[in-house]
C-alpha cells in the first residue's frame, strides 16, 4: 500500500512539474499590451488568461509544436502555430476589430483550419445554437442549415442531414462513434447537451475520416474544454419550460493543475406531457433522464491523454399509443398533464468510456482512441416489469490516425478505424425484433491535403471497408447466418480562396451495408407502432455526391451558398402493406434502384456598419428527392427559412438585458409524399428571448428568459413520428435558463523546474 502511495505521489509530481512558457499579447497597430486576452492551447484543451499588463504564463508541459488560439474583446482572434522553445517572452499581436463574423477555427473533426478545408463543414458552439433555449440537443443541432430534427414527442429527437437520418448519419462524441441502436426512428441521438461545447456537421457522403457509411453526413460533438491551468471552476445551471413543466438541473466542476485536468458534469431532467395549442396534453409524452460525464486529461512532453466516461439514462414515454385501428382522441390527448411513469415506455441507458492518446512529433501527429459503449434498450408495451423487447448492444471500437504534416506543401493522413459489436436479447423480453448477433467493421483510409499556392488547396483520399455480421441461429435453423460486405470509396476536392471569396468543389462516394434489422427484422417495433419485416436479399447502398460551395465574407457581411447533388444506388426504405400483424401495420424493408437527392443551403450573416449592436443571421435549406421513376421519397424535410436577429444592448444596468433575440422559422409546404404518407402544410414559428449577464466579484453567469412558438401555432412537422396520428408539436412555451459559475485560481506551492 505504501509503495502504491509513493508511486502515485511520484507520478503526480512527474505530471505536475513543467517549464513555464510566457509571453505578451499586444495590439498590432499601436504595440500596446492587451489586458485579459485568452491564450488557449488547442492540443491540451486548456490555457491561460493574460494579466492586466497583457502578459500570460503557461506553467504546463507542452508538445514540441502547439497551436494557440488567442482572443480578446475588440480584436480578431488568431490561431498561431509555434514551437515550444519560442514561447519565452513571446509576443502575439492581435488586429483590432469591432466585429468578428467568423472566427479562425481549427476543425475538431478534421484538424484543418476551417477556412482551408476542402469539404463543407459547419461548426457552431452550443451557445450559438441556443440563443433561444432548446429542449434537447437534437433541436439545437436542427438550427444548423441543412440539418433537421426527427422527433417522437419532446423526449426523442434525432438529427436529419440533407434528408437522411438513422444509420445514414454517424454521430461522434470526442472521436468515438456513438452506437445505440440508431436504426430506430424512435431511438434518439444517445447523448444530451450536458457538457457539450461545440457541434460540427460534415454534410453528405464526404467524410472518409469518419466512415463511409455516413451517406447523409457526420455530426461531431466536442465536449467542453478544461478550465485554465491552476484554476478551479464550479457551476450550476437550471432550465424550466412552461409547456411541459419541464426542468433540467445540472452542475459542472472543473479542476486543472498544471499537467492534470479534470471535468465532471451531471444533470437531471424531467418533463410532464406537453401541451398543444388546443390546450390539451399529449398523453405519455413525458420523459425523465439523468446523465453524468467525467473527463481526465493528462500530458507530458509530446504526449496528451484523455480518459472520458459518460452514463446517460432516459425513461421516455411513447405517445400515440392506441389499441384501435382508428385512434380515439381520448387515447391520444388528455385535459391534464402528468409526469407519472406509464406504458408504453422506452428505457435507454448507455455507458461510454474512451481513452484517447495523442503524440506530437516534429512534423507529424499520432492519435489513437479506444472506446467501449454499452447500450441497453428496453421497450415496455403491456407490462411494467417485463419488457416487450430488451437488447444489449456492446461495442468496442478503435480509431487511429497518423497525420504527417509537412512533406513540402502536402500533408498526409493514414488511418484505421473499426469496431467489434454484439447484440444480445434479454431472455426476460417477450419478443425479439433484432436477433442476437456479432458484427465487425474495419476500415483503412488515406488522405492527401496539398497546398499548391497561396490560393489553391486540394484533398484526395481513398478508403477501404470490410463489414461482417454473424447472426446467431434460431431454434429452427441449423447454422448461423453470415453476411459479408466490402467496398472501396474515394473523395476529391479543391478549394480556391482569394481575398473575400472562397470556392469549394468536392466529389465523393460512400457505402452502407444493410443493417441486420433491415435484413432480418420480423416482429413488432413498439415505439414505431409497426410490424417490421426485413429481407436477406438487400444489397449495400452506394452513394456519389457532388458538392459545391461559394463563400463571400468581409468585415460586415458573410454569405455562403452550398448546392449539391447526390445519387444513391439501392436506397433502403420502409414500404407499408395492407396487412396487419399483432395489431400493427406490416412494413417491409425494400430498395430503390436509384434515388436522387439534390438541393442546397444558403447562410447569411450581416452586421451593419451603421449599427454595430445588430446582428442579422439567416439560413435557407431546400431538398428535393426522387427515385429513377420520378416517384417521391418518404420523410423528406420541408424547405426551411430561419432568421435570427440579435441586438446587443451592452447595458451595465443589472435589470436591463445584455441582448435581445427574435427568431423566425418558416417551414414550407411538403406535398411530395409517397402513398400513405400525409402532406404537410407550411407554418411559421416565432421565438423571442432576452439574455442577461450576471457578474459580481466572484460569480459569473447568465439568465435567459424567452418564449418559443409565441403565437401558439398549431402545426405538425413533416418529420414527426407522431404525424400519422395527427398529434401536433408543442404550443407556446416560456423558458427560463440560469447559469452561475465560480472560477478561482488555485494557490500553487510547487516550484517550476
Amino acid at each position, binding site marked *: 500500500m505504501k509503495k502504491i502511495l509513493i508511486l502515485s505521489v511520484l507520478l503526480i509530481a512527474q505530471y505536475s512539474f513543467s517549464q513555464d512558457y510566457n509571453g505578451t499579447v499586444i495590439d498590432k497597430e499601436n504595440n500596446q499590451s492587451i489586458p485579459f486576452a485568452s491564450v488557449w492551447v488547442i492540443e491540451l484543451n486548456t490555457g491561460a488568461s493574460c494579466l492586466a499588463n497583457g502578459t500570460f504564463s503557461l506553467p504546463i508541459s507542452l508538445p514540441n509544436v502547439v497551436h494557440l488560439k488567442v482572443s480578446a474583446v475588440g480584436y480578431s482572434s488568431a490561431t498561431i502555430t509555434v514551437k515550444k522553445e519560442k514561447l519565452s517572452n513571446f509576443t502575439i499581436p492581435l488586429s483590432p476589430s469591432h466585429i468578428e463574423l467568423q472566427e479562425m477555427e481549427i476543425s475538431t473533426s478534421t484538424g484543418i483550419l476551417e477556412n482551408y478545408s476542402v469539404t463543407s463543414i459547419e461548426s457552431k458552439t452550443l451557445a450559438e445554437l441556443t440563443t433561444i433555449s432548446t429542449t434537447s440537443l437534437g433541436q439545437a443541432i436542427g438550427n444548423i442549415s441543412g440539418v433537421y430534427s426527427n422527433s417522437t414527442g419532446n423526449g426523442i429527437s434525432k438529427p436529419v442531414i440533407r434528408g437522411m437520418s438513422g444509420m445514414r448519419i454517424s454521430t461522434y462524441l470526442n472521436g468515438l462513434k456513438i452506437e445505440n441502436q440508431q436504426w430506430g426512428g424512435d431511438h434518439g441521438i444517445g447523448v444530451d447537451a450536458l457538457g457539450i461545447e461545440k457541434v460540427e456537421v460534415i454534410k453528405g457522403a464526404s467524410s472518409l475520416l469518419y466512415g463511409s457509411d455516413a451517406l447523409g453526413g457526420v455530426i461531431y460533438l466536442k465536449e467542453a474544454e478544461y478550465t485554465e491551468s491552476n484554476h478551479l471552476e464550479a457551476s*450550476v445551471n437550471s432550465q424550466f419550460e412552461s409547456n411541459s413543466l419541464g426542468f433540467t438541473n445540472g*452542475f459542472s466542476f472543473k479542476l486543472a493543475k498544471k499537467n492534470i485536468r479534470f471535468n465532471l458534469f451531471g444533470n437531471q431532467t424531467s418533463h410532464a406531457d406537453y401541451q398543444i395549442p388546443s390546450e390539451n396534453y399529449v398523453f405519455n409524452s413525458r420523459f425523465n433522464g*439523468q446523465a453524468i460525464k467525467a473527463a481526465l486529461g493528462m500530458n507530458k512532453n509530446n504526449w496528451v491523454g484523455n480518459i472520458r466516461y459518460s452514463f446517460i*439514462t432516459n425513461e421516455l414515454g411513447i405517445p400515440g*399509443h392506441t389499441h384501435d385501428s382508428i385512434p380515439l382522441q381520448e387515447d391520444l390527448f388528455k385535459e391534464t398533464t402528468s409526469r407519472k411513469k*406509464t406504458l408504453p415506455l422506452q428505457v435507454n441507458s448507455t455507458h461510454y468510456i474512451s481513452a484517447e492518446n495523442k503524440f506530437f512529433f516534429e512534423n507529424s501527429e499520432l492519435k489513437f482512441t479506444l472506446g467501449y459503449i454499452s447500450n441497453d434498450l428496453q421497450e415496455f408495451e403491456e407490462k*411494467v416489469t*417485463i419488457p416487450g423487447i430488451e437488447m444489449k448492444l456492446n461495442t468496442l471500437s478503435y480509431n487511429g490516425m497518423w497525420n504527417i504534416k509537412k512533406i513540402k506543401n502536402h500533408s498526409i493522413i493514414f488511418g484505421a478505424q473499426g469496431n467489434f459489436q454484439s447484440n444480445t436479447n434479454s431472455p426476460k423480453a417477450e419478443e425479439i425484433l433484432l436477433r442476437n448477433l456479432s458484427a465487425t467493421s474495419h476500415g483503412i483510409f488515406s488522405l492527401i491535403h496539398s497546398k499548391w499556392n497561396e490560393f489553391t488547396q486540394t484533398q484526395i483520399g481513398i478508403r477501404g471497408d470490410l463489414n461482417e455480421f454473424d447472426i446467431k441461429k434460431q431454434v429452427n435453423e441449423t447454422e448461423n447466418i453470415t453476411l459479408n460486405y466490402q467496398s472501396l470509396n474515394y473523395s476529391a476536392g479543391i478549394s480556391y480562396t482569394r481575398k473575400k471569396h472562397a470556392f469549394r468543389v468536392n466529389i465523393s462516394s460512400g457505402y452502407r451495408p444493410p443493417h441486420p434489422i433491415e435484413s432480418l427484422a420480423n416482429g413488432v417495433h413498439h415505439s414505431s407502432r409497426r410490424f417490421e419485416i426485413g429481407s436477406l436479399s438487400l444489397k449495400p447502398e452506394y452513394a456519389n455526391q457532388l458538392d459545391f460551395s461559394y463563400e463571400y465574407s468581409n468585415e460586415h457581411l458573410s454569405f455562403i451558398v452550398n448546392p449539391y447533388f447526390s445519387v444513391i444506388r439501392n436506397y433502403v426504405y420502409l414500404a407499408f402493406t395492407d396487412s396487419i400483424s399483432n395489431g400493427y401495420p406490416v412494413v417491409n424493408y425494400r430498395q430503390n434502384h436509384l434515388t436522387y437527392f439534390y438541393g442546397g443551403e444558403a447562410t447569411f450573416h450581416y452586421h451593419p456598419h451603421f449599427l454595430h449592436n445588430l446582428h442579422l443571421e439567416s439560413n435557407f435549406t431546400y431538398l428535393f428527392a426522387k427515385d429513377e421513376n420520378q416517384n417521391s421519397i418518404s420523410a423528406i424535410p420541408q424547405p426551411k427559412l430561419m432568421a435570427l436577429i440579435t441586438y446587443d444592448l451592452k447595458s451595465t444596468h443589472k435589470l436591463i438585458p445584455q441582448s435581445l433575440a427574435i427568431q423566425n422559422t418558416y417551414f414550407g409546404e411538403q406535398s411530395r409524399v409517397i402513398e400513405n404518407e400525409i402532406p404537410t402544410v407550411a407554418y411559421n414559428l416565432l421565438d423571442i428571448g432576452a439574455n442577461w449577464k450576471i457578474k459580481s466579484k466572484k460569480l459569473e453567469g447568465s439568465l435567459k428568459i424567452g418564449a418559443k412558438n409565441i403565437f401558439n401555432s398549431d402545426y405538425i412537422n413533416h418529420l414527426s413520428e407522431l404525424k400519422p396520428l395527427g398529434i401536433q408539436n408543442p404550443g407556446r412555451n416560456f423558458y427560463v435558463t440560469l447559469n452561475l459559475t465560480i472560477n478561482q485560481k488555485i494557490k500553487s506551492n510547487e516550484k517550476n523546474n
Partner: protein
Amino acid sequence: MKKITNTALIIAALSMFSVSCNKKECHECHYEKDGAEVELGEKCDSDLETLEADGIDVNGVNYEVHCHEH
C-alpha cells in the same frame, strides 16, 4: 476555496447517487374477468413482477394481470 471544492464534490456525489439508486416501483394492478376489471390494489417490486409474469389463479382459472393505467 475549500468550501467551494467540498460543496462541488458533495453535489457530484449526490448526483451520482441519484443516478445509480433504484427506487421502489409500485403500480395499481387489475385483471379482467367476464368483461369487468377486478382491482388487486397497489403491488410493488417482486410481488408486481410475479403477478405480471405468472398472472393470478382464481377458482382454477389463470388470468393475465395488468399493472398500468392505459
